[in-house]
C-alpha cells in the first residue's frame, strides 16, 4: 500500500475556511438552512476538515463519508441541488487541500464522494419519510382537533339552545326535557315542582329600567343557584321572572315547606346594585305528585296555578297545590268560557220569588232571579256564574237580556190582573257604569213592551251605589226619573256611608238576610228594629230578606217592617207558578 505524505496545509485553517466559504456560496439558496451565515461556514468548515481526514486516511477507508452525508442533511443542507453543488465544489477543492491533484487522488475522491452521496441520499430519504410520518400524524391530530372543536361548538350550540343567556341557567326547554326524562325513567317515586316567581321584578324594571331589572334577576339567579346546589336540586329559569326547582322524592310536605321557606328567605334579601337597594320578594307554588302516570304538562299547569294562589295570598308566600281548589278553579274557568255561548243560545232564564206585604200578605212584587240551564251541568244558580260574568264583562249583555225577559213577563202579568206585581231585577255595577246604555235599554224596553214604569224595579247592591261617583248618581236619578222603582239590595251587609242614603232616589231598603237569620225569638240585641226605623226615617219601605219561619214573619210585622221575602212566603219559582198564583187571587177577589 502506498503511504502518502500527510496533506500539506492540513492544519491550515485559512485554507479550510476558504473551501467552506466556496461550498456555502455554492449551496446558497438550494435549501433553507436555519443558521447565520457565519455558522453555516463554520459548520461546512467542520465537514470539510472531516472529509479531508477521510480522504487522507491510511489505509484509505471512504465509509466515514457516508455518515458525513447523513449529517449534512441533518444540518438542513438538504436538497437534491445541494448534493449536486456539493459534489462539484468538493471534487474541485478537496484534492488541492490534500496536497494532491484530482488526477492523482481521483479514485479516492470518487470513492469518498460516492460514500458521501450514499449517506446524503439515505439521509434525505429518511428525512422525507420522517416528515411524511409527521404530516400524517399532524393531519390525524388536526382532524381529531377539528372534530373535537366541532363537537365542542355543537356542544356549545346545544348548550346555548337549552340555557338561558342572561343567567346561564338551564332554560325551560332543558327543564321540560329533564322532567320528561325523569318521568320516563320512573326511578323516582314522587317528584315535587317548586315554581318560583320573583314578584318584585316587574316593579324594579318599571321603575329603574331593564338594565337594573336584569341585574336584579342575575343576582337572584345566582342566589338561587347557590341554594339549589347546596340542596342538590336541579334549577332552571322557566320564563321571565319564573324559576323552577325539581325535587325528587321529597321527604313529605314539611320538607317541601322548609325548602320553600329557605328559598323565600334567600330571595327576599334586598339586592344591592349601583346606588340602589332593591327590595326583593318571591312567591312559590309547590306541587308534589307521584311520578307514576304523571303528565308533565299537567304538573306544570298545577304549579303555575299554585304560584298564582301564593301571589294572591300576599308577598313572600308559598302555597301547596290543592286538588279540590284546582278542580273548582278549572271548573270555573270552563264555565266562564261557556258563558258567552250560553247567552247566545239563550240558556239563561228567570225564576221569580214573591215579595209580600206583611200587612195583608199580598204579593206586591216578585224578584227576578237568574238561572242557567247549562247543557252539561244542568241548572245552575247565580252564585256559580254571576262573578264570572262580571269578571268577563259578559254581565252587561246578560243583564240586558234578563231585563228584557223580566219586562215582558211583567207586562204579561199586568194584562192578567188589576193589581199586578212589580218585577224587581238585579243590576250589576258594570251595567250602572254603562249609564247611558242602561238608561236607553230601560227606556226603550218600557216603550216597546208597553210596561208601566212603576212595574219595574231595579235592585242595586249597597256597595254599588258609590255615593261619590257623580256619574252613577246621575244614572240613578235618570232612571228614577223614568218612574222606575229603585231598591237597595243586601242592605246592612256592606259599609255604606248612611249619609248619602238621604239623597239617593231609592224607594226600598232590602235588609240583608243575615239579620233575619241571626234573629232568635229570645234575642234582645237585634238590629232589625233599627234598620226598619232607618228606612222609615228616610221615607223608604223596608223589606226583610230570608224569612223562613212564621215567628220571623210575626216579629218583623211587630216591628213595623213593610215587606218580606223568603221561603216562608215562596221560593223562587217559574213564571207560570206565579201566574197561577195571581189567577187564584184575582178569582178570590172577585
Amino acid at each position, binding site marked *: 500500500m502506498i503511504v502518502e505524505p500527510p496533506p500539506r496545509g492540513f492544519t491550515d485553517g485559512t485554507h479550510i475556511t476558504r473551501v467552506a*466559504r466556496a461550498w*456555502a*456560496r455554492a449551496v*446558497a*439558496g*438550494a*435549501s*433553507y*438552512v*436555519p*443558521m*447565520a*451565515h*457565519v455558522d*453555516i*461556514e463554520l459548520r461546512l468548515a467542520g465537514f470539510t476538515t472531516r472529509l479531508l481526514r477521510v480522504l487522507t486516511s491510511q489505509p484509505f477507508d471512504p465509509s466515514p463519508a457516508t455518515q458525513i452525508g447523513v449529517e449534512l442533511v441533518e444540518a*438542513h443542507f*438538504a*436538497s437534491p441541488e445541494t448534493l449536486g453543488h456539493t459534489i462539484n465544489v468538493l471534487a474541485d477543492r478537496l484534492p488541492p487541500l490534500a496536497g494532491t491533484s484530482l488526477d492523482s487522488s481521483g479514485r479516492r475522491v470518487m470513492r469518498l464522494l460516492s460514500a458521501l452521496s450514499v449517506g446524503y441520499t439515505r439521509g434525505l430519504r429518511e*428525512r*422525507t419519510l420522517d*416528515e*411524511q410520518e*409527521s*404530516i400524517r*400524524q*399532524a*393531519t390525524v*391530530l*388536526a*382532524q381529531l*382537533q*377539528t372534530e373535537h*372543536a*366541532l363537537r365542542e*361548538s*355543537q356542544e*356549545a*350550540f346545544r348548550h346555548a339552545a337549552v340555557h338561558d343567556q342572561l343567567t346561564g341557567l338551564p332554560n325551560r326547554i332543558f327543564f321540560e326535557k329533564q322532567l320528561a326524562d325523569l318521568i320516563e325513567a320512573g326511578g323516582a317515586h314522587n317528584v315535587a315542582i317548586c315554581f318560583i316567581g320573583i314578584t318584585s321584578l316587574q316593579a324594579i324594571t318599571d321603575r329603574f329600567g331593564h338594565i337594573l331589572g336584569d341585574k336584579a334577576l342575575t343576582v337572584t339567579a345566582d342566589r338561587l343557584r347557590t341554594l339549589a346546589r347546596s340542596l342538590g336540586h336541579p334549577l332552571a329559569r322557566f320564563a321571565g321572572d319564573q324559576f323552577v326547582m325539581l325535587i325528587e322524592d321529597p321527604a313529605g310536605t314539611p320538607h317541601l315547606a322548609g325548602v320553600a321557606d329557605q328559598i323565600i328567605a334567600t330571595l327576599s334579601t334586598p339586592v344591592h346594585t349601583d346606588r340602589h337597594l332593591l327590595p326583593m320578594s318571591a312567591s312559590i307554588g309547590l306541587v308534589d305528585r307521584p311520578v307514576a302516570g304523571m303528565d308533565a304538562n299537567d304538573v306544570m299547569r298545577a304549579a303555575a296555578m299554585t304560584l298564582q294562589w301564593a301571589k294572591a295570598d300576599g308577598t313572600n308566600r308559598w302555597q301547596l297545590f290543592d286538588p279540590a281548589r284546582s278542580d273548582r278553579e278549572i271548573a270555573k274557568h270552563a264555565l266562564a268560557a261557556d258563558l258567552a255561548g250560553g247567552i247566545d243560545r239563550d240558556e239563561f232564564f228567570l225564576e221569580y220569588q214573591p215579595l209580600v206585604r206583611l200587612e195583608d200578605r199580598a204579593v206586591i212584587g216578585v224578584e227576578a232571579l237568574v238561572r242557567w240551564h247549562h247543557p252539561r251541568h244542568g241548572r245552575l244558580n247565580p252564585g256559580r256564574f254571576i262573578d264570572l260574568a262580571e269578571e268577563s264583562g259578559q254581565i252587561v249583555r246578560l243583564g240586558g237580556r234578563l231585563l228584557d225577559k223580566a219586562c215582558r213577563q211583567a207586562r204579561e202579568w199586568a194584562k192578567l190582573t188589576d193589581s199586578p206585581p212589580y218585577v224587581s231585577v238585579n243590576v250589576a255595577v258594570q251595567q250602572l257604569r254603562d249609564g247611558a246604555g242602561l238608561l236607553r235599554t230601560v227606556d226603550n224596553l218600557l216603550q216597546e213592551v208597553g210596561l208601566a214604569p212603576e212595574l219595574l224595579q231595579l235592585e242595586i247592591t249597597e256597595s254599588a251605589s258609590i255615593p261619590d261617583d257623580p256619574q252613577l248618581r246621575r244614572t240613578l236619578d235618570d232612571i228614577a226619573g223614568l218612574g222606575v222603582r229603585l231598591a237597595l239590595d243586601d242592605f246592612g251587609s256592606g259599609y255604606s256611608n248612611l249619609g248619602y242614603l238621604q239623597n239617593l232616589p231609592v224607594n226600598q231598603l232590602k235588609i240583608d238576610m243575615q239579620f233575619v237569620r241571626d234573629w232568635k225569638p229570645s234575642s234582645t240585641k237585634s238590629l232589625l228594629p233599627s234598620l226598619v226605623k232607618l228606612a222609615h226615617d228616610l221615607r223608604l219601605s223596608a223589606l226583610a230578606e230570608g224569612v223562613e219561619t212564621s215567628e220571623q214573619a210575626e216579629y218583623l210585622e211587630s216591628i213595623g217592617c213593610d215587606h218580606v221575602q223568603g221561603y216562608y212566603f215562596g221560593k223562587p219559582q217559574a213564571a207560570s207558578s206565579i201566574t197561577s198564583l195571581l189567577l187564584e187571587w184575582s178569582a178570590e177577589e172577585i
Partner: protein
Amino acid sequence: MDRPEWAPPGIDVERPSAARLYDYFLGGSHNFAADRAMAQQLLATAPDIPLIAQANRAFLRRAVHMLAESGIRQFLDIGSGIPTLGNVHEVARDVAPDARVVYVDLDPVAVAHSAVLIKDQEGVVAIQGDVRKPGDILHHPTTRELIDFNQPVALLVVALLQFVRDEDDPAGIMAQLRDALPSGSYLTLSHGVVDGWRHDREMVKNLYNRTTTPAASRTRAEVAPFFGDFELVDPGLVWVTQWRPDQPSNIDGIKAAKSAVVAGVGRKP
C-alpha cells in the same frame, strides 16, 4: 364566510394552503399532493419563490435573535406556519432558554404540526386563530396564560398580511394588536409586495386565490402604516435581505430587490 359561526374551518387536503405551500418552498415535506401541484404551477411562473421564502425565513431568524438578545422573552407569532425549520422558539431559546412563544395559525394542520413539535416543551404553545379576529387571539385563555401583557412582547406578523385583504381591514387589525402591547414591545413584520416582483403578478395572485387564504397585493408604501406609531429600528423598512444581513452577505440566494418582500421591526414608544 358562509360557514356557520360554530363550524371550525375543516381540513381540506384537496385545497392548497399557504402554510403548506410555504413549507414546500422551504424544502419541507409537510404538504399534500394538491399543494405540490400548485407549487409546480407557481414555480413555472415565478421560479424565485423558494429563494424569497428562504430570505423571509432568514429575516425571521435574524429578527427573533436580535429581539431575544435585547431582552424580549415573550413572542406572539401570528401566521406562524408549519414549523419547518428554524422556528421562533428554537431561535429565541438559543439566546434565552426561558423565552415563551405562542404560535397562532389559521391552518389546522400547521397548528397540529406545531403542537407535535413543541409537545412537552413548557412555555411554548400553538393555538388555532385567525388574525382577522385579533380579539380572539389576544383574549384566548392560552395566550393570557403564557403572555403577560404588562411586560414587553414581540409580536410577529411575518409574511402574513399578504393573506389579509383590504375588506378585512388589516389596518384596524394591526391597530388593535399594537394597542394590546405595552410600551417597549416590538412588532416584527414582513410583507410580500408587488414592487420588485418580476414575475406574472396576476397569475400568481390567481393561483393564491385558489388557496384557503386568497392573497392581497400591496406596495411597499402601503406596508409602512402597519407599524402605526411604532418606531422602526435600524435599518427601517427595507427589502427583506437588507434587514441586518448576516456576514458574510455574499452567500444570500437572492438579490435584495428581487425578494419582493419588505421587512422591518418597530418598537412601541
